[in-house]
């Protein structure tokens, strides 16, 4: 019966996806690892083989290190907010009420807006000319705090953190709310009948059931914070305006690969690929550590 060797149907099912994925995902990924070993600007013939030279330079590169530090700050600031304020917000919104649906829809809205839209909104709010933050401070009697938020290197990164927080908060709240659905109401009722205070119910009933949601939220946050590019690029550009204060790893890689937007640009594509690989490894290590730590914690609290 099966004398003729023809590809069986399952291969035809797989083929279109495998072909696209091979050509525009696997091939470029492998090419990146290979080209990162060369000294090549991206134009003309491929330069000389320098082994791990690019990687050595990445670790000594002051610009890349300062950008990586900005990623760390973004991650820590958002982690602090997520695990306190966002959680609190999710618990508030979890109460049974006809407003829960509409609230949830509003909370999630920032997540469906494009980074260009979000970046623009925050640039405008903080603008010294037409913004509403400075006039707002004036109106409540804090006029002395008025500031050129995005032009001052000491505040620009924090302005970006706030914009990222606005977008991130949307997803984190919804995941926490989904986690809260898993807390059996009988457990809470039983605790209350036994005379537990609100805090004790939260600490010993709600929190343990939320452990899986904590894991998901914090691992996703690591990916969000270390891969940040879009919003940061819209506000600070590839030069990390002002003066490199808003550079993150993603924008440094883009700037090295495609130029920083000035006319005398030189590109360093191989070097950018080495930086990209370092970012990938850093993210992988951080996500793995978080995952192991939080999974252990999950088992402990249950």
């Amino acid at each position, binding site marked *: 019966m099966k004398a003729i060797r023809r590809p069986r*149907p*399952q*291969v035809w*099912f*797989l083929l*279109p*996806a*495998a072909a*696209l*994925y091979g*050509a*525009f*995902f696997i*091939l*470029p*990924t492998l*090419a*990146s690892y290979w*080209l990162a070993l060369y000294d090549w600007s*991206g134009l003309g013939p491929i330069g000389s083989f320098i082994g791990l030279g690019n990687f050595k330079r990445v670790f000594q590169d002051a610009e890349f290190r300062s950008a990586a530090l900005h990623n760390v700050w973004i991650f820590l600031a958002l982690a602090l907010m997520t695990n306190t304020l966002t959680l609190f917000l999710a618990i508030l919104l979890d109460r049974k009420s006809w407003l829960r*649906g509409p609230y*949830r*829809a*509003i*909370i*999630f*809205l920032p*997540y*469906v*807006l*494009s*980074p*260009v*839209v979000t970046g*623009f*909104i925050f640039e*405008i*709010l903080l603008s010294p000319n*037409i*913004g509403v933050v400075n006039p707002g401070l004036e109106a409540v009697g804090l006029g002395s705090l008025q500031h050129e938020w995005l032009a001052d290197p000491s505040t620009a990164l924090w302005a970006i953190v706030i914009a990222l927080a*606005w977008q991130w908060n949307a*997803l984190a709240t*919804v*995941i926490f709310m989904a986690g809260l659905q898993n807390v059996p109401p009988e457990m809470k009722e039983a605790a209350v009948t036994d005379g537990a205070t609100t805090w004790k119910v939260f600490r010993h009933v709600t929190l343990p059931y939320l452990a899986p949601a904590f894991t*998901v939220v914090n691992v*996703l946050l690591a*990916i969000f914070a270390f*891969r940040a*590019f*879009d919003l940061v690029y819209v506000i600070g550009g590839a030069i990390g305006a002002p003066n490199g204060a808003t550079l993150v*790893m*993603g924008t440094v*890689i*883009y700037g090295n690969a*495609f130029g920083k937007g000035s006319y005398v640009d030189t590109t360093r594509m191989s070097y950018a*690929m080495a930086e*990209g*690989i370092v*970012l*990938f490894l850093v993210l992988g290590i951080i996500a793995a550590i978080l995952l192991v730590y939080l999974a252990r914690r999950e088992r402990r609290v249950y």
Partner: protein
Amino acid sequence: MIAPIYFLVLGSFKSVEEFFAAPFGLPAHFGLDNYRRAWTEASISTTIRNSAIVTFCSVVVSTVVSCLASYSIARLPLRGSLFWRLLFVGGLIVPVQLIMVAIFIIMRWIGLLGTLGSLILVYSTFGIPLGVLVLVGFFQALPKELTEAATLDGATDFQTFMRIVMPLSLAPILTVVILNGVWMWNDFFIPLVLSTRPNVETLPLGILNFFGVYSTEWGLIFASVVLSALPVVALYLLMTRRFIAGMTAGSVKG
């Protein structure tokens, strides 16, 4: 949460003088002047068409190939199905910044740089990991009896897939379409790298470039930003539940 969006919409109706005179106030009248000018001067008429073509084609291609591949991984006697599954889904964690440098080089090499086709190819590919993630899980959960009965009646794998499996899978397919479609419509990084000619710019990229040129025509910029967000927001308001369910399902597993 909602205040920034309020100022954005309000600002899209204001004239430049009104921004200075009354930062919190309402505009004098709700005319559509800013919108009309944005449509032509920000070349939104071109970029919105490019975005629509690219998003539509990429959603269709990536969804179709993901459905086929997921079905073979989940239900057909495919050798190494776990390997294929991990290979596709693993794409979710690779940083786009890294891979786009090599894609730029490949597109320049095959002469597709600066065409809508290059965008469609890349988006179609990058949509596969999420498609496989959602659909393999769904197909595996379908009862085996359904497909076995069809096979016994003499249907080929493709007929079973089209007539039995597809009609039952509309909900997860819609999730994939929404998640990928919103991302493709909003993304500007891939066109930033590949759209090397102005006539193939997509909507977000066109607006980003417009900021630089018209940096003081705020009303105009506000209007173009609102226009770009309108289709997705309208879709979101119509289908809030499916959006949120899809986004949390996609992210929880990813």
